[in-house]
């Protein structure tokens, strides 16, 4: 075979086949077969993705249209794939991390019924298929199919334990909030169709396509803003972020795959893909920066006071996504993609680690009831620690490089760069603090759970620990693809992505960069030590007061949405239901019916059955006719 890229259509197709086999055969297949099929197809996709990656690394890319998806007279949308450096990198993340999480799931979900087990794997495979479609799509419409598909799978998997009503409403919340964002994406697509007459990335981002957009009034800002709204929904940014913490209702591997490593980065992928367009829209970029910054800070502050192990990680994810948006807003697209890569490793690692902890604790998620777990589960503890070090940005680990690049990008923004840098750095310090708070409370100190739980504590099986170890290794070395020049590297990632994503224009001189790195590293270590002194012998704390209470209650954002949006909406619906629908429309229809009924009851009395009366009426009628005939 001359070119492996010709077979790229197999990469999304295999998970789809896995979905069909597991979904249709869920009543007959045993758990072993389901695991084999579920993991096998992803492994095959991963191998293909690696081969594709090798090709794109050599600069070979492929834009291909398999068939006409929509064909309306002169307007055609093909089922197009665009396989280039950016999409092949995402292919690796999705199938690689996805495969590890599939393997992990075989052990984590082992207590489920056969049927539910197969259902779980079929959803997971469908998710991988949709996500692959999203990144492979060669135009906005194909991307949108994947975009909707991942939203659907996210909904299905959050509500996987659908018998719990709280979980189903969390699933609904995720789906509805995503829909709000999706509307933005759709409108942007329509606008692009109107202006350019095509949705193909190459056409839209060509010189002619861009000039068609820039010549129309407000179009650049409008389209990018709408796309950004789509991204805020999928990637959990203010104001649509509240679904992500609730999405933790799903099984933990799902949180790791969908709500940390892959789906939530779809917004970043989409903006990175459209970077040419976004670079033209200054106002939108400013907004993206502000929103990213606010989200990073807000979510980090909430994470400090959360006591649910998965909620902390969820807010951490929101916060890290905020960092990525800061990078996007400052035009530092490479850094954003780089952070997606490293974040996928260490956040998947920590979610799987938390899953291992929850597994050992018999379903307990409250860190106040844990503590001192290190001696019981050394692998989980050590890999989790590596994840924490990576996300905190300790030099040498992956998070350091990507976060440092974002910080440097923020610093070099003209004008307000130093303020931006300061706030971003503060959010990064909060990150280090809450991650180590989580680590110390969970793994050090004394055990605070029940005797039964303590007796039950055990390390997880190999199917769970091996993915942890692999991800830990990736979290350590993952950053070395993007070592900046200041540290003697070449930033291979930037070079690799350069055909698709242009590098940030601004370059700091090396001395400034050393100072920034030293400063952030020092402060991160200080905040870790602070967390250590505060939480190494955690014995529980009293009721939170004052500001702490505000943080614990997540700034009351959910309550705010409840009272500002949901409550008025519900009252409005109740008004429409009770007044307009029941009294207005129903009243009108019913009164028509009543009028007919009443008048027919009255007319019925005429038919009395008295023949004499009929005859009399007949005679009267005849007389009337005569009179009319004669005198009128």
């Amino acid at each position: 075979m001359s070119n492996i890229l010709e077979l790229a259509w197999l990469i999304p197709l295999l998970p789809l086949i896995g979905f069909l086999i597991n979904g249709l055969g869920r009543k007959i297949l045993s758990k072993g077969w389901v695991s084999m099929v579920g993991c096998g197809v992803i492994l095959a996709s991963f191998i293909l993705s690696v081969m594709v990656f090798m090709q794109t690394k050599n600069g070979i890319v492929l834009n291909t249209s398999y068939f006409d998806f929509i064909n309306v007279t002169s307007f055609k949308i093909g089922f197009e794939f665009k396989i280039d450096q950016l999409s092949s990198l995402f292919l690796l993340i999705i199938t690689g991390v996805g495969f590890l999480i599939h393997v992990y799931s075989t052990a984590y979900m082992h207590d489920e019924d056969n049927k539910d087990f197969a259902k779980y794997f079929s959803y997971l495979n469908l998710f991988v298929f949709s996500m692959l479609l999203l990144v492979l799509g060669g135009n906005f419409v194909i991307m949108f199919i994947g975009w909707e598909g991942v939203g659907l799978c996210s909904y299905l998997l959050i509500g996987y334990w659908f018998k719990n009503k709280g979980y189903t409403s969390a699933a609904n919340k995720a789906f509805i909030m995503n829909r709000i964002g999706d509307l933005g994406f759709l409108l942007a697509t329509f606008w692009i169709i109107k202006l350019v007459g095509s949705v193909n990335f190459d056409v839209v981002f060509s010189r002619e396509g861009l000039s068609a957009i820039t010549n129309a009034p407000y179009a650049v800002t409008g389209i990018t803003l709408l796309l950004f709204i789509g991204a805020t929904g999928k990637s959990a940014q203010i104001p649509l972020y509240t679904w992500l913490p609730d999405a933790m209702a799903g099984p933990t591997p799902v949180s790791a795959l969908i709500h940390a490593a892959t789906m939530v980065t779809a917004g970043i992928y989409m903006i990175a893909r459209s970077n040419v367009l976004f670079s033209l829209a200054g106002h939108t970029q400013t907004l993206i920066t502000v929103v990213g910054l606010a989200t990073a800070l807000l979510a980090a502050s909430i994470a400090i006071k959360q006591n649910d192990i998965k909620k902390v990680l969820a807010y951490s994810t929101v916060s890290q996504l905020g960092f990525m948006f800061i990078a996007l807003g400052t035009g530092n697209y490479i850094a954003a993609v780089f952070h997606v890569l490293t974040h996928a490793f260490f956040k998947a690692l920590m979610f799987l680690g938390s899953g291992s902890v929850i597994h050992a604790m018999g379903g307990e998620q409250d860190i106040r009831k844990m503590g001192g777990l290190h001696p019981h589960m050394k692998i989980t503890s050590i890999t989790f620690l590596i994840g924490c070090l990576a996300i905190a940005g300790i030099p040498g680990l992956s998070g350091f490089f990507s976060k440092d690049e974002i910080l440097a990008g923020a610093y070099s923004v003209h004008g307000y760069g130093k303020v931006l840098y300061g706030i971003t750095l503060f959010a990064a310090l909060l990150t280090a603090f809450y991650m180590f708070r989580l680590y110390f409370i969970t793994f050090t100190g004394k055990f605070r759970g029940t005797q039964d739980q303590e007796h039950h504590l055990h390390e997880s099986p190999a199917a769970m620990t091996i993915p942890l170890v692999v991800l830990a290794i990736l979290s350590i070395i993952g950053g070395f693809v993007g070592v900046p020049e200041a540290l003697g590297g070449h930033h291979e990632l930037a070079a690799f992505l350069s055909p698709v994503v242009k590098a940030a224009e601004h370059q700091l001189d090396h001395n400034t960069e050393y100072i920034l790195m030293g400063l952030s590293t020092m402060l991160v270590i200080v905040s870790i030590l602070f967390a250590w002194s505060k939480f190494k012998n955690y014995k529980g704390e009293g009721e939170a007061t004052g500001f702490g209470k505000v943080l614990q209650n997540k700034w009351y954002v959910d309550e705010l949405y409840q009272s500002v949006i949901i409550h008025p909406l519900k009252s409005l619906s109740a008004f429409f239901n009770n007044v307009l629908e029941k009294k207005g429309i129903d009243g009108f229809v019913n009164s028509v019916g009543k009028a007919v009924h009443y008048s027919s009851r009255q007319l019925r009395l005429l038919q009395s059955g008295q023949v004499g009366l009929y005859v009399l009426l007949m005679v009267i009628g005849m007389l009337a006719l005569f009179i009319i005939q004669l005198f009128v």
Partner: protein
Amino acid sequence: MDIKAYIALSLTLFSIGIIGVLTRRNAILVFMCVELMLNAVNLLLVAFSKMHAASGIAKASVHYASDAQIFVFFIMVVAAAEVAVGLAIIVMLYRNTHSVDINFLNRLKN
């Protein structure tokens, strides 16, 4: 004779018939009144026929002189048939209910 006299007699007979139908409850009387109305019409038909036969129009076509009188025979035949059926019904009615009161016949109501 003047046609007006025939019309007056015919109208009188017809009115008597109608009033009889409306006021009487005895089925046989109602029946007789219906016959009276039919015969009032027959009388009128014959009277008009004779009147037209004497006028100029009938000279052109023989049919004008006799059509109405033939029509009267038809009516008589129909009336005879009607009487046969009607009287049979009344007889059956009497056998079943021992009454010929037409107001008694509203039992299909409700």
